[in-house]
């Protein structure tokens, strides 16, 4: 497609040579990234396929024992794994749609021609500057049953929010939504500002009300942005680790034990690289499947304007 048809030279040989050179350049250009991925992503990940087949000692120097598929079956068949997967899905459902909706709401509101709007935009985007660690410290304090705010407002469930089997996961989700709100706002603003003015004006001339214009014109034109955010957001939601580590450590009663946290505790708390390997492969395949599903079902509804 990029090779211009009109180029001169003896047709067959020259074309083949150009093709080869193009391919060579292609490989050359992707080589730096490919080398990094091979060494630091593919290679260590591939090791999981081997680790999964062995019962591994907690510390190096002790013998490993080949157990074939047994460990894989044990881990994937365990209620711990099913529970963790469910928690992960729940967490993604709590964070991804809410994040998109809130980002869209703020973006729509900030997309007005008003004096001082730049300040509001900066504020709405501000949480991008925080990190998971920062958001965790902040919300850990805000939701603390002894520190100021909540008891003052008369909110003190027993057990306290982050120790509460019912509320811990929504609480971590809330911190996550806040932390990613800036990003969601930026993404949605970018999408909104790309909606052509003339289309909206035409709709207005046709007598469409403001809500109708929003649902019938803006949302369809925004669907690629929403789609992109949903796909990437889900992938990241499935890899949630930091806020769990800092706010709940997977508790209470494993109610916030998402897959990535589960993997890390197997690896670091229990020094069990075998089960961690099985879980890592499972997480990868599940994320891949989820992405494919989204591509298949969500993308159908996406309206590509151009």
């Amino acid at each position, binding site marked *: 497609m990029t090779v211009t048809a009109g180029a001169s030279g003896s047709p067959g040989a020259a074309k083949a040579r150009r093709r080869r050179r193009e391919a060579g350049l292609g490989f050359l250009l992707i080589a730096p990234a490919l080398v990094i991925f091979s060494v630091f992503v593919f*290679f260590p990940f591939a090791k999981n396929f081997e680790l999964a087949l062995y019962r591994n*000692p907690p*510390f190096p120097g*002790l*013998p490993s024992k080949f157990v074939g598929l047994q460990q894989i079956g044990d881990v994937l068949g365990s209620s711990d794994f099913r529970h963790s997967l469910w928690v992960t899905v729940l967490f993604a459902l709590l964070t991804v749609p809410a994040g998109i909706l809130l980002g869209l709401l703020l973006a729509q509101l900030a997309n007005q021609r008003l004096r001082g709007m730049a300040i509001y935009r900066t504020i709405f985007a501000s949480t991008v500057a925080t990190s998971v660690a920062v958001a965790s410290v902040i919300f850990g304090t805000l939701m603390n049953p*002894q520190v100021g705010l909540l*008891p003052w407002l008369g909110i003190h469930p027993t057990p*306290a929010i982050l120790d509460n089997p019912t509320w811990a996961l929504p609480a971590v989700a809330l911190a996550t939504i806040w932390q990613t709100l800036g990003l969601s706002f930026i993404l949605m603003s970018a999408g909104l500002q790309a909606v052509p003015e003339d289309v909206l004006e035409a709709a207005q001339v046709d007598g469409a009300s403001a809500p109708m214009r929003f649902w019938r014109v803006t949302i369809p034109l925004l669907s690629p942005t929403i789609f992109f955010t949903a796909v990437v957001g889900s992938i990241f939601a499935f890899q949630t680790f930091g806020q769990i580590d800092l706010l*709940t450590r997977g508790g209470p009663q494993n109610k916030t034990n998402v897959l990535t946290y589960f993997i890390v505790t197997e690896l670091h708390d229990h020094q069990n690289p075998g089960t961690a390997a099985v879980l890592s492969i499972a997480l990868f395949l599940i994320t891949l499947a989820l992405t494919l599903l989204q591509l298949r079902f969500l993308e159908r509804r996406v309206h590509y304007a151009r």
Partner: protein
Amino acid sequence: MPRRLWQISASLAISAALITTVLPGLAGAATPRAAGAPACPVNALQKVSSPVQITMWHQFPRANEQAIQKLTDQFNSSQNKVHVTLVNQTTYQDLFNKYVAGLSTGDLPDVAQIEDEGLQQMIDTRSVLPVQSCIKADHYTELSDFLDRAVRYYTVKGVLWAMPFNVSAPVLYYNKKAFTKAGLDPNQPPQTLDQIKADSQKLKASGAVTQAGFGLKDDPWYFQQWLAKTNNTFVNNGNGRNGRATQVTLNNATGQASFAWMADMVKGGLAVTNDYLNPSSALNNLLGVGNGNLGMTIDSSADLGTILQVLQSGQYPNVDLGVGTLPSPPGSGGFRVGGAALYISAKSSPQKQAAAWQYLKFLNSAASQAQFAVDTGYIPNRKSAVTVPALQTRWAQVPGFRVAYDELLNGAGNAASAGPVFGDYLGVRQAIVDAEGPMFTGTTSPKAALAAAISKANSVLAAYNSRVGG
């Protein structure tokens, strides 16, 4: 698009499989090293001309970090054969993770500070030079002056593996003003679990506290203490000291009573509870006592120093802090130590090992222990440290500092009060805390919770043991 992705993911999987088979295997297990304690080269420093550089990993936060740095500076300037550099690895867990990683990468310290329950796993790393070897080689005779409980804790099958250093024990913290307001004697803190309950009822009924009488940090450490006090071990095989622990030993009167009491307190609204594992709520109960929400709580004696600093700022006019002996079911047993110990690496050179031993001896001298106790609030692990004037002055000013020390002197010294040795310790802790959760919300009975804790903890022990080939 999706079909394309399927094809590609299939080929991805194939290539991953290819990479696995082509690349060199990881399984190649090294031959296990011969068991039996290696010798400690205590004389390796004799011919040293310039100071031997050694590194210690620790996890002390701020004020305590300054205290250990002060001691280390004193050591470095007191002689010219050894120079110690401290590296702060932020938390016990991060430190241990980095240590385990170091077993593969070779980046290990010469001395590592590992929390109490890491003992079994440290032994299993086969990377430790037991200090017993150095004691023998150096004809070190001061061990008899150490707190017996501290030495027993780190001794397995007659071998002392690590030098106890920062020793602590749980104590009761309570607000004397709230006690007075509730009509209780502020100088008679509860001594048993039943008395905690009775006092909590009065605290709450009188309005002396706004939330609950008692803040229960759900830490299995306290539960272990109650077992020890009633002469029960926590795990079998002599608390893991005669042979590898294979089962927890919780199904006894103390185990049942403790679970029932905890559930009763929380469900009855007499206690609030929080998971000790949760870093965001670690200080909740102490804060609660401070702001009048709670009347008392149990926490580590190591916290007393900073608590006093806060109180001295005058921001808590309604708090007059009392420190009481850890309440427990009545029994003739004793409490076990908490805190951490210092391990010498077997992978270090003879000179560095000898240097590490000199450093550990210094840190555990009576003078050093007294100074560290004054600076931090940790329990001095030398009996003669108690006669050092600075510590005597400190204890006279704040008698609360002495409470934890006395706890460790009292009661029978046996396998139960020596404390348990087992792996993996985080897994067992987690199993117990997870099992307790539902009984606090009333989803299960304390009996069922105890049964769940036992079965989960046993499977954790079995899984770990099978992986170390025990």
